[in-house]
């Protein structure tokens, strides 16, 4: 049997800035006349113009009928673009896709819901937009309503719904689609935990009950390893790796792109003033940060500040399983000011202090009154490898391991 989805050398480029081109004949002619050399160059080579970038680059993969394929990767990796191209919302720049079956895409929960219409009316509207026929909706109507749990409000305009009810109704319609190929983008991040569980169970049912092929984009790595038969890891428009869910999810967790993703998650009012460019551990350039117990751990944060900040000090913390082991402050900081320009901050942890295990680094800073601050957790994930010796014995159960602090003398 032929593969239900075949993607061959798929590429998609976008342009930075405000305007995307229409690529009409007339646009091409204008381009040809205004920049003739660049025009022919762009035809021959597949090269990018100055202000363009690849959202997807030579992506190829196949999906068998009935398979559930997970797609993971950091923000901006191209996952959503891939789904958009697959669902014909936007055309590829080159390459080819063959889809053998009816496709529905669920890139957002509640697409086309109209605030003024009632729940009942919106079920029909949303169903039709997602590609269901009236007949299909009618036969599934009761099921949809029951699953959503909003029976009582069926004839109330959805503008009076709570956001939870809204999402539940919207997901219920989508969950009852009956196409052969279903493209799902990060829709499980909505609703409360109870409802998310219900959704996962529903997706399980969909997968097992019928011959359904699902492409599933999510940041929820737990759900990915639970639901998928196979996983693609994407970064910067390229497929980095594909394989068994456990293997790929583990690989991704260890990768620096995983922490790079979290590196963007600084909070506080100085997030845009202070830019962290690079964080290294023991000068390691590789993706996998690991050290031996006897290694001294030296972290270097390189960054830039776009203006001077008075009485500013940096601070680090080490976390293990989301509990804080310790934090340290650069106490001298408050006496001087952080000058505009590049800076480096060092953190040095003596050997043997951390027991073998997984850790994450948090980094931030604040001024004297704490009014100006920034803070980011999980900015770098690292592992201290399991190697036991005299200075860190396995028997010393605990969170940290102060080496050589015990002695015994007979008197």
């Amino acid at each position, binding site marked *: 049997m032929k593969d239900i989805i075949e993607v061959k050398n798929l590429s998609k480029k976008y342009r930075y800035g405000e305007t995307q081109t229409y690529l009409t004949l007339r646009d091409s002619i204008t381009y040809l006349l205004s920049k003739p050399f660049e025009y022919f160059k762009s035809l021959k080579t597949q090269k990018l113009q100055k202000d363009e970038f690849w959202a997807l680059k030579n992506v190829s993969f196949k999906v068998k009928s009935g398979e559930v394929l997970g797609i993971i990767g950091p923000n901006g990796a191209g996952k959503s673009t891939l789904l958009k191209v697959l669902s014909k919302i936007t055309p590829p720049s080159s390459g080819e896709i063959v889809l053998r079956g009816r496709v529905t895409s669920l890139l957002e929960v509640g*697409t086309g819901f109209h605030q003024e219409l009632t729940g009942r009316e919106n079920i029909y509207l949303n169903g039709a937009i997602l590609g269901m026929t*009236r007949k299909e909706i009618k036969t599934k109507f009761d099921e949809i309503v029951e699953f959503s749990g909003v029976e009582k409000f069926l004839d109330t305009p959805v503008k009076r719904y709570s956001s939870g009810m809204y999402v539940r109704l919207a997901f219920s319609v989508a969950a009852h689609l009956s196409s052969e190929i279903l493209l799902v983008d990060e829709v499980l991040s909505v609703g409360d935990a109870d409802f998310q569980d219900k959704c996962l169970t529903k997706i399980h049912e969909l997968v097992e009950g019928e011959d359904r092929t699902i492409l599933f984009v999510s940041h929820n790595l737990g759900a990915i390893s639970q639901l998928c038969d196979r996983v693609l890891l994407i970064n910067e428009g390229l497929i980095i790796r594909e394989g068994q869910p456990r293997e790929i999810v583990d690989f991704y967790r260890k990768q620096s792109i995983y922490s790079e993703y979290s590196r963007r998650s600084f909070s506080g009012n100085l997030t845009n003033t202070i830019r962290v460019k690079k964080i290294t551990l023991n000068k390691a350039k590789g993706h996998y940060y690991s050290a031996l117990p006897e290694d001294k751990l030296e972290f270097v944060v390189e960054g830039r500040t776009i203006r001077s900040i008075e009485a500013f000090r940096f601070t680090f913390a080490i976390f293990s399983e989301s509990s804080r082991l310790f934090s340290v402050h650069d106490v001298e900081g408050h006496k001087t000011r952080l000058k505009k320009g590049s800076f480096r901050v060092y953190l040095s942890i003596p050997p043997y202090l951390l027991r073998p295990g997984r850790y994450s680094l948090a980094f931030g800073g604040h001024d004297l009154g704490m009014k100006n601050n920034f803070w980011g957790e999980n900015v770098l994930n690292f592992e201290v490898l399991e190697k036991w010796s005299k200075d860190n014995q396995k028997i010393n159960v605990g969170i940290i391991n102060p080496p050589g602090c015990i002695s015994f003398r007979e008197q």
Partner: protein
Amino acid sequence: MKKITLIRARNRWQLIYLKELWDYRELFVIFAWRDLKVRYKQTLIGAGWAIFQPLFSMFIFTFFFGNLAKIPSGGLPYSLFVLIGLVFWTYFSGILSNASNSLIENENIVKKIYFPRVILPLSKIITCFVDFVIAFVMLILVALYFNKIPNYQALIYIPLGIIIASLAASGSGLFLSAFNVKFRDVRYALPFFIQMLIFLTPVIYPLNIVRPSFKYLLALNPMTGVIESVRTVFEGGVIGWDTLGISLASSIVIFIIGLNYFRATENYFADIV
């Protein structure tokens, strides 16, 4: 039999995918139904607006142009004469302005889901047709009042007029909606443009007060032929196929140009809008 979809950078050019439109036929109705449902929510007189607008304009125009300016109105009383023009003009301008804004208004849907995009502007024909039917019933009542009952010709020329008006309005609507995605100027220019266009259409004056050579130029505006022929039907006169023919041809050309531009650009709507 499974449906096979092939996606490439440039698909084979086709003016319209009839098969695909047929598959999505229900969406036409659903969009139109949504618009009708939403349009008169939280209004006092609801669909009464479909009658009120042309009727009120009729009174104003009759007073200023009929009684004061004494514009001739052929074999019809001026109020009936101007009402015919207004009912068809409202239908035309309704489709034109609604279709032009349809893609922008439904931006969130266009970005998140695929369907043949032409459905959005074209479904406005259905929406406006419902209003037109209401207004047309009122027009017949006014005609009965003046004892001007159209003869059998009405069965040919009124549907033909509706077809020409629909083609012309949706053709320019298709063009402007696609243009609007990239250049939002349409939103500001269009109301003004429609206001001006009513004077280039014989809504408040009869076509025969302009010079004969100028007549053919005006006939390039499809609504000229439509309004003139419908009036002739109510007068019980003989239809002049010269203006109507030009208007019919012009509406077909407008529709093809509009659809062609739309089809050439629609792939990129989601990226640009």
